[in-house]
């Protein structure tokens, strides 16, 4: 089995929670799109964490793939009139190819230099999106496209779109878990724990790191495509390195060494932002402060705190 019984139970529990969430959200004064957003960021962060928590590589450039697929989805619907069933896979494929190419160029660089290079390449995408007015709508963003039907299923209403995203969300959880359970996943962790030992064992470290980079970026692409459809809008900030930073923030706050960590981080991020922003527009201050506290004192994130509570 690629999933243990425990995995199935845990993923099933999370799935059950998200299945009934649309009923709960309005009751606590929130709304269904908030739940959709948590799942979208969850897909982004869970995929991202294959790279960060899984194999120990920090990227500040995954927003490029997120935004690229977002724009691609919008453009394919708007200009080429592609149906969603083709537009979404095409956009994700675009993110995959971009990541394969950029990854091949930069994966040999280590640590800080790698992080800086991801920013550099990410910002190139950002500036292209914000400058190429005729294609992308420039700084105003890309509007005029709308999510409609996906294989006969009308995803225009908020609830329908929620369950549409829920499907992808569930697949993401299952895939990431299966990947980390597989020998590939174990190899990634081995590389994170000790690069030199992995090399001595004859593992082609760069190949595995490149693989992790591309897979994580593909999930960024999926999340970006869904996010553009959620908002019916794509804008340059989607590609900005600060958006990449949000994915980092979610992974760290939730716990980058725990499977559900990034998802918990995404939930905390969206909720905190929404709750705090009803009181003050300055939500970035408490969020930044919380992040600092986690980096300093709770490096295992929220789920790491629980782990300690269990006496593990």
């Amino acid at each position, binding site marked *: 089995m690629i999933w243990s019984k425990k995995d199935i139970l845990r993923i099933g529990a999370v799935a059950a929670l998200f299945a009934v969430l649309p009923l709960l959200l309005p009751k606590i004064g929130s709304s269904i799109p908030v739940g959709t957003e948590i799942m979208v960021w969850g897909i982004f962060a869970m995929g991202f964490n294959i790279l960060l928590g899984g194999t120990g590589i*920090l990227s500040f450039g995954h927003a490029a793939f997120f935004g690229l697929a977002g724009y691609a989805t919008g453009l394919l619907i708007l200009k080429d009139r592609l149906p969603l069933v083709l537009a979404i896979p095409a956009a994700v494929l675009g993110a995959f190819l971009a990541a394969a190419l950029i990854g091949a160029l930069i994966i040999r660089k280590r640590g800080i230099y790698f992080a800086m290079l991801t920013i*550099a390449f990410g910002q190139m995408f950002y500036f292209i999106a914000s400058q190429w007015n005729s294609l992308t709508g420039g700084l105003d963003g890309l509007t005029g496209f709308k999510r409609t039907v996906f294989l006969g299923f009308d995803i225009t209403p908020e609830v329908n779109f929620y369950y549409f995203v829920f499907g992808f969300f569930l697949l993401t959880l299952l895939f990431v878990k299966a990947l980390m359970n597989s020998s590939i996943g174990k190899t990634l962790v081995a590389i994170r724990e000790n690069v030199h030992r992995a090399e001595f064992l004859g593992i082609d470290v760069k190949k595995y790191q490149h693989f992790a980079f591309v897979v994580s970026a593909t999930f960024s692409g999926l999340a970006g495509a869904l996010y553009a459809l959620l908002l019916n809008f794509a804008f340059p900030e989607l590609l900005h390195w600060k958006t990449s930073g949000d994915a*980092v923030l979610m992974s760290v706050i939730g716990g980058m060494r725990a499977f559900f960590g990034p998802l918990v981080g995404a939930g905390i991020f969206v909720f905190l932002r929404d709750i705090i922003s009803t009181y003050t527009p300055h939500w970035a201050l408490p969020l*930044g*402060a919380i992040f600092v506290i986690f980096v300093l004192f709770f490096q295992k994130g929220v789920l790491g705190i629980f782990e300690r509570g269990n006496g593990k």
Partner: protein
Amino acid sequence: MELSLLLSQLFNGIATGMLYVLMAMGLTIIMGTMGVVNFSHGVLFAFGAYFAYLIAEKTGFFGALLLAPVVVGLIGMVLERALVARVYGKDPLYGLLLTFGLAMALEEVIRIGWGTAGLPFSAPGFLSSFIDLKIMFYPAYRLAVLGFILLLIAALWFFLERTTTGKIVRAGIQDSVMVGILGVNTKALFTGVFGLGTFLAGLAGVLSAPMSGIMPTMGDNVIMPSFIVIILGGVGSFWGSVTGGLMLGIIVSLCIQFVPAVAELSMYLVMALVLLVRPRGLFGEEGLFE
């Protein structure tokens, strides 16, 4: 193409580049000594400008130029003692993450304190005119900034090369563990280096305020170029920062004039190219972070 246009853009490029140099010097000594990539450098740059705005109301421009960077440097030292010092010796990624969160929070502090709109800030009266350089007229303030930063770079060079404290700082960039073993109080050294680095960021903020105005996100516009300067020049390298800063300032300014569409893109292209071809930068030493 007019020669005067080309020349004035070249001058603008040098002036902008000089600001990048100041920023990059601060970043690079911090990075070289403590191994911390300080993401909050841009926001401290903005703090420099905002403090100058406050102080200038009481003392005029020169009082602000003198005091604001000192205040920023002191804030830097407090941040270093309270927060940054806790990640020394850990994976460099933690320093980057910590200062990223710090930058996020501090930028919001600016918005709370001074609002989101930009603030006006003018150069002192006698520098607000244009100077006749025979072939063109050029803003006196920019020329003054150019000269001032040149002097400052010379002073920094003198400090690092010729004074004992400066030699300790340079030794720290080479190998801070060894410096500690030799009996230097590295705790004080690190705080001092962080203070000096953030002082330079504050100073760059004050100087840039009359040229590009004051706004909460002003740090964003310089933090990335400064990182690129360091990568171009090489981490911990004095002349690398100077060369990298001037190169980048000139490239961007010329692009703004002649191919505006790629102006901002150009610096990332340059960075990617250098990193791919020569990862340690033009003057950098092999090994640091590589």
